[in-house]
């Protein structure tokens, strides 16, 4: 589904991604872990099409297409979804109107007619129930005045609305208490199918107790320095990143 080959990217002339290789197949959940500042969010942003990051080398193939040639809205309609580490507040735009526009555009891309108002409201209600989103949120402006937990839940709700092929969850666990974490993880698990895939970015292994990955990568200093199974998360939990850092610093 997704094939990243030797991807390099910089911001303000500073190289952040220094040759990333990663392949994600349908049905898989990958976790990307790593210390702060190692480039996890940058990778997510580059995949979503953020233009402040300049791709200086490498390729990204998504469902057989050159992803880097697509603008962000096209990537979304093709099936990429980024749950932001810091969801943006949009005063004056209600979640309902926002999702209405997004779902419209996704349907248009698939050659489907827009839903009528009552269909749309029913669809939204269904998805809200699925991710246990508080009903009060829908009349409010997107993320405006939301608590950290509400913002993260709102990301998962949007993901449910758009049913992406590849979801990239950037630190969706950070700032959540254990109950909120369970709700968020639950939502992600419910949305998981054999056809879609997810990349779960996290700093801590805690989330991985609830969203169980098939493969874990450690990103450090713009490179994936280690890849392994579930046991890698437990190892990191025990010993921290120091060993991996030392080893990587020797190699590069």
């Amino acid at each position, binding site marked *: 589904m997704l094939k990243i080959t030797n991807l390099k990217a910089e911001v303000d002339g500073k190289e952040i991604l220094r040759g990333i290789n990663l392949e994600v197949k349908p049905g898989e959940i990958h976790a990307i872990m790593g210390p702060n500042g190692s480039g996890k969010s940058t990778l997510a942003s580059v995949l979503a099409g953020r233009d402040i990051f300049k791709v200086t080398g490498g390729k990204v193939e998504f469902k057989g297409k050159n992803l880097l040639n697509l603008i962000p809205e096209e990537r*979304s309609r093709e099936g990429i*979804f980024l749950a932001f580490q810091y969801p*943006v*507040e949009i005063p004056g735009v209600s979640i309902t109107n926002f999702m209405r*526009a997004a779902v419209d*555009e996704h349907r248009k891309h698939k050659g489907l007619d827009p839903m009528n108002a009552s269909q749309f409201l029913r669809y939204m209600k269904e998805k809200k129930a699925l991710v246990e989103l508080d009903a009060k949120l829908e009349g409010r402006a997107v993320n405006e005045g939301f608590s950290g937990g509400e913002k993260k839940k709102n990301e998962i709700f949007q993901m449910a609305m758009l049913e992406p092929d590849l979801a990239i969850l950037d630190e969706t666990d950070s700032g959540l208490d254990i109950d909120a974490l369970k709700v968020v993880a639950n939502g992600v698990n419910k949305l998981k199918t054999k056809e879609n895939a997810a990349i779960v970015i996290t700093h801590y292994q805690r989330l991985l107790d609830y969203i169980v990955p098939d493969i874990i990568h450690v990103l450090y200093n713009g490179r994936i320095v280690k890849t392994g199974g579930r046991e890698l998360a437990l190892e990191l939990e025990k010993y921290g990143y120091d060993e991996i850092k030392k080893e990587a610093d020797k190699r590069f």
Partner: protein
Amino acid sequence: MTQTNIKNKTFVDLYSGTEDFLLPHTVRKKSVNLFDKIKLPDNKTENWRKFKSEPIFEHHYSLGKKLNVDTKDLDSLSFFEPSGNYVILVNGFFYSGNVKKPDLNNNVFIGSLKDAQKTHPEIISDRLHVQNAKTENYFSVLNDAYAKDGAFVYVPENVILDEPIYIMHFIQSDNGNIFSQNRNLIIAGKNTAFKIIHTYHSLSSDFSFNNSITDIFADENAQLEYYLFEGEGNTAAHINHININSEKGSSFKSNIVTFCGSAVRNNFYAEFKNEHAAVDLQGIYMPDKEQTVDNFIEINHAKPNCRSNQVFKGIIDNKAVAVFTGKVFVARDAQKTDSAQSNQNLLLTDYARIHSRPQLEIYADDVICSHGSTTGQLDKEALFYMKTRGVPEKRAKTMLMKAFLRDVTDKINADRYREYVNFLISKRLKGQSPESLCAVKVCPSC
């Protein structure tokens, strides 16, 4: 005529041989003389620096005729309800044609100010020329000297009206450019509550210049909502003076939408004549091409315990220029004044300009006065966020711009009018030109 004011002939000559002016002879005489001396505002005139008066004088005008407006032709003004109470003026003259008589008891008057001078002589003479000398300028003096008619709305004590009163001005030329003046008087008597929807439109595309004054009196405990719509075409200049006199306990809530006009200048002057009164001024302007919109606001907190609030938002496109000046004066004994001011602007191009400046003059010490001004582009983070959900850039921008104006439009408390304004804003933000949207004959639902 003095050398400097040779330009005055543009207007004065139009009136030679005519009579029937609005102001009493003695007042007029002073104004006529003063007009001869007063300086035309230019880029050195305090409070007028950014407003270009020159183009107004590049045209020859006529006063236009009393032409017909068939209310059936006003379908495109979807906020207007012909079954409601309204006064229509064409080229500044009261139009009585097939307009139905206001259907009101309680001695409410809605009609021509000139006519009302005969039926309500005392009420009018007491209020017609109490404008503070501070607000006097070239154009207000021109109006004092030569205005012939306008709308008069008088709602006597204790009357509460649920339906809005419409004051509608049309410019209509049969041939050539129109110079129009109107002088409106709105009196909200003690304990009254009502809404006014005051609109300006063009029915023709020749150049026009409209010089208006509206004097508004909010008497004790009056609750007045005043919605002003400026939609004369983009070959129209409009200089509009709105003077508000707020008595004890009164509330004046206003919303001004400046949608069209090549050059529009709004002079607001609000004065608290007594305590515990409130004035809320909200405004939206969306100039395009080479339009200029200049809002000059002056609030005189002459008395203690009053509240004023200004919220003006602009979206400025192409090479348009917007000016916002928010002046707040707080007198020495106007303690417990609460005054807030905010001006926010979005510039859509590198050529669009905004000149925004607060001017606070505060002589009392126990007051709350806040002001803030922001100018920027659309929030790039929000745009990217929306795009990652599949919303294309253009649609996302439109949504963000509508959202930017929403807190102002949401406060329009007259449903049909609010819908009309939202409709125009949507169309405008989707790229339709202001002139096509302001043309009265367009079909709004298609």
